[in-house]
């Protein structure tokens, strides 16, 4: 049986974006998925704007450090230091909220989805908001461009260089961390290089660092300019040349294609397909747009086994709900708490390997929490779950008696709270105005779920409020979103 346009388009929108938005519901059955994909590509055409959330106060302070550095004053006042930490933390939080807002509202869904993928691939923890902004911009700008350009931009970002200790990588004191992760996690994958390659590559990256503003700096006097041998090639390589050597390896195309396949198509890799993708990706000199087009316009992408086969990541889940049910959140903190409780907080990956994904999203606590979200946003349930402390962010301050200190951790220390979402149901409810009453549950289900199976309609009805047509549509929607099936896309 061939699949309807609606099913295929929902599949496409969940994978190439963050799920269908309520205003797109009308079009889902009108267009072919090829046409919809064309639209997605076009909407992601433009170079994204730089997201700048750092406040002027912090910018002033950072300029102050620079000035102090120039005047050789070593210590800055303690209060300033503390303020810088606090403002940075708030900055990264704003960046998180801002970007999530983009994921919900931007029509450049393909670009934001790819950026989200690269955000996990080039996973980086860094408490400096300027560095994080720079890295995010490098990723969003190159998300659909050339993988080599993206790799180089990330490798030269202050966020990554600092996170992977390349500031400490000097001619007389090599630090291999950066070189190792570039090979293991960003390009070749484990087992495709030797320890000797890591050592030699690390020498080539000596002298790569950044200044306080977060600009890339090549410190020539720290650079080891002697000859190195990496993956069988010998020469007086610098970092750029080593990245070129890594890109020359077909294994890099293979590694990336497999990861892309797992993320966008199916957790279980079909090697025939991923090899075909890798081949073309390599031949195109790493054109990411081409790779995505190969996937989203192929017939096999729309195979039944790939539809509804992925467990949504926490961010995909949270963004997806908001795209379908536009809402204004009085208490945006709650979104941060949910990210943490569910195990995926933007800008705080578990480590440089990123979020492992798939089944690892699900344990008893996270699953129950996921299924409670719809009632939480409807204020019918209370957020009574406490996430674990994050000491990298809190630095021991969560114990402080001082109220101001604790206040500075807003969003990190939860209170018992309701989310206070103000959902705009108008457009959503209107979408069903011509649906017969008996078919309501079915058609709501079809829009919300990608799985073939669904919770029994009669059961959903039992828990829906049949007081009015409108309340029936609303409560049915929230109950269906509270099922295991809704966790999949």
């Amino acid at each position, binding site marked *: 049986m061939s699949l309807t346009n609606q099913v295929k388009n929902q599949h496409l929108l969940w994978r190439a974006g963050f799920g269908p938005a309520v205003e797109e519901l009308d079009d889902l059955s009108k267009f072919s998925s090829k046409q919809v994909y064309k639209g997605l590509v076009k909407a992601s055409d433009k170079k994204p704007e730089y997201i700048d959330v750092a406040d002027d106060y912090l910018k002033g302070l950072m300029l102050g450090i620079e000035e102090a550095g120039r005047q050789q004053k070593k210590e800055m006042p303690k209060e300033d230091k503390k303020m810088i930490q606090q403002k940075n933390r708030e900055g990264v939080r704003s960046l998180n909220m801002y970007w999530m807002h983009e994921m919900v509202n931007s029509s450049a869904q393909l670009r934001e989805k790819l950026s989200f993928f690269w955000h996990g691939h080039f996973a980086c923890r860094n408490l400096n908001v300027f560095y994080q902004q720079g890295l995010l911009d490098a990723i969003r700008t190159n998300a659909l461009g050339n993988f080599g350009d993206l790799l180089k931009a990330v490798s030269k970002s202050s966020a990554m260089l600092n996170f992977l200790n390349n500031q400490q990588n000097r001619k007389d004191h090599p630090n291999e961390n950066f070189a190792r992760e570039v090979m293991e996690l960003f390009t070749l994958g484990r087992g495709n290089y030797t320890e000797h390659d890591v050592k030699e590559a690390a020498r080539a990256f000596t002298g790569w660092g950044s200044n306080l503003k977060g600009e890339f700096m090549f410190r020539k006097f720290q650079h080891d300019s002697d000859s190195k041998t990496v993956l069988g090639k010998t020469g007086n390589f610098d970092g750029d040349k080593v990245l070129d050597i890594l890109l020359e390896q077909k294994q890099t195309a293979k590694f990336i294609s497999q990861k892309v396949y797992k993320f966008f198509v199916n957790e279980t890799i079909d090697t025939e397909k991923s090899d075909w993708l890798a081949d073309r990706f390599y031949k195109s000199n790493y054109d990411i747009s081409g790779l995505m087009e190969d996937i989203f316009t192929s017939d096999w992408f729309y195979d039944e086994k790939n539809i509804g086969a992925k467990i949504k990541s926490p961010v995909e889940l949270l963004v997806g709900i908001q795209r379908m049910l536009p809402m204004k959140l009085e208490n945006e903190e709650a979104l941060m708490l949910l990210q943490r409780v569910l195990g995926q907080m933007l800008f705080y990956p578990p480590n440089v390997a990123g979020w492992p994904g798939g089944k690892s999203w699900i344990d008893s*606590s996270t699953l*129950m929490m996921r299924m409670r979200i719809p009632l939480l946003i409807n204020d019918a349930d209370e957020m009574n779950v406490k996430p674990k402390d994050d000491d990298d962010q809190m630095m021991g301050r969560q114990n402080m008696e001082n109220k101001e200190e604790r206040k500075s951790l807003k969003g990190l220390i939860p209170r018992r709270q309701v989310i206070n979402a103000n959902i705009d149901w108008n457009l959503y409810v209107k979408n069903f105005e011509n649906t017969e009453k008996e078919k309501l549950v079915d058609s709501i289900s079809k829009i919300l779920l990608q799985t073939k199976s669904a919770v029994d309609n009669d059961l959903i009805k039992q828990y829906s409020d049949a007081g009015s047509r409108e309340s029936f549509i609303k409560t049915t929607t929230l109950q269906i979103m509270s099922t295991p099936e809704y966790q999949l896309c």
Partner: protein
Amino acid sequence: MIIKRKEFIQIGSLATASIMLPKFLKAFEGQAMVPAGNKVVVILQLSGGNDGLNTVIPIRNDIYYRSRPRLGIEKTKALSLTDEVGLHPALTGFKELYDDGSLGIMNSVGYPNPDRSHFRSMDIWQTASQSTEYVTTGWVGRYLDAQCSGCDKPTQAIEIDDVLSLAMKGQNINGIAVKDPKRLYGTANEKFFRDVLKNHKNEAGEKPVDYLYKTMAQTLSSADYIFQQSKLHPSSAEYPKTDLGNSMKTIASLIFSDINTKVYYVSLGSFDTHVNQEMQQQRLFTEMNEAVKAFVKDLKSNSRFNDVMLFTFSEFGRRVSQNASGGTDHGTANNMFLVSGGLKQKGLINPLPDLNDLDEGDLKYKVDFKNVYATILNKWLDADDKKILSNKYDHLNFI
């Protein structure tokens, strides 16, 4: 007799409830009850990087006092264990355990190429990985994988928390997080979830949706099971009214029940004492001391102390020198407490760290924490440590 009757009624009602459960859940029904003498591990995680040097104090070491003019704990204030070694003044209960022969102190525990990020170092401890590799399963989780492949008993490892730690996540089986057995997943929608589950007809399969239903089924039935068990022999002892006190009381009540739990996991923090260390460590140690003291007393009066091994760990210790803010910064190797009535080696198991032999101001590790894990897995839990840790680590002699 009254207790017996109560047990009967509760087991009875559980059995009735399980008739309505999907087939793949029935594993619970015929499950072997756990006899007394069954070994249990309680893991107490000190989050944030506890300062080991002010925990087990080298009270006659000049370098210690020179490095910590303000933070060093005076010999007269420390609770002295030997001429050379004292405990933090708040740890009175641990001093009693030491005198009693039920405290072991393992010094200089760490791992090669230590990482100073809380998150990363905690990852390394919880996954029992090398610092150069990224592992996505925890060591207790892999213990679950090895112990009960094919069975549905996530209650073998319970974390007293709202959120499950990586340590508790296996490849196929996860432990379960429970903050309070009475209000487990207490949600307005609970009845709906139960109905959704009852309504699901598919057998356990390979598809992700089956995995979700399986997890949901395990969660709800484990919640019931844990709740029932926690009521069987609830501890009647006095515990401090702190978070940790409540958690330890929950653990004791479950240990006294017939539940099949082998590993309990609980955290205390934050020990990240960059500033005002004195106050912060004092407060946290008081909480730990009172809770552990009550727990041990409770276990002893129920004759279960010999079956329980409690140990503490932290993601790293702190630097030897104090900083300028009345605190200490992230360091490396650290000590661990082992508390049990069944210890083979007691007191100071190995020497204090050598402050003359530092690595750029940091302690050098002498014992890999994975040796401690291997010992506990193998000798206490009778498990295949080589498989779980995917490496052979020599066993230590404290068990």
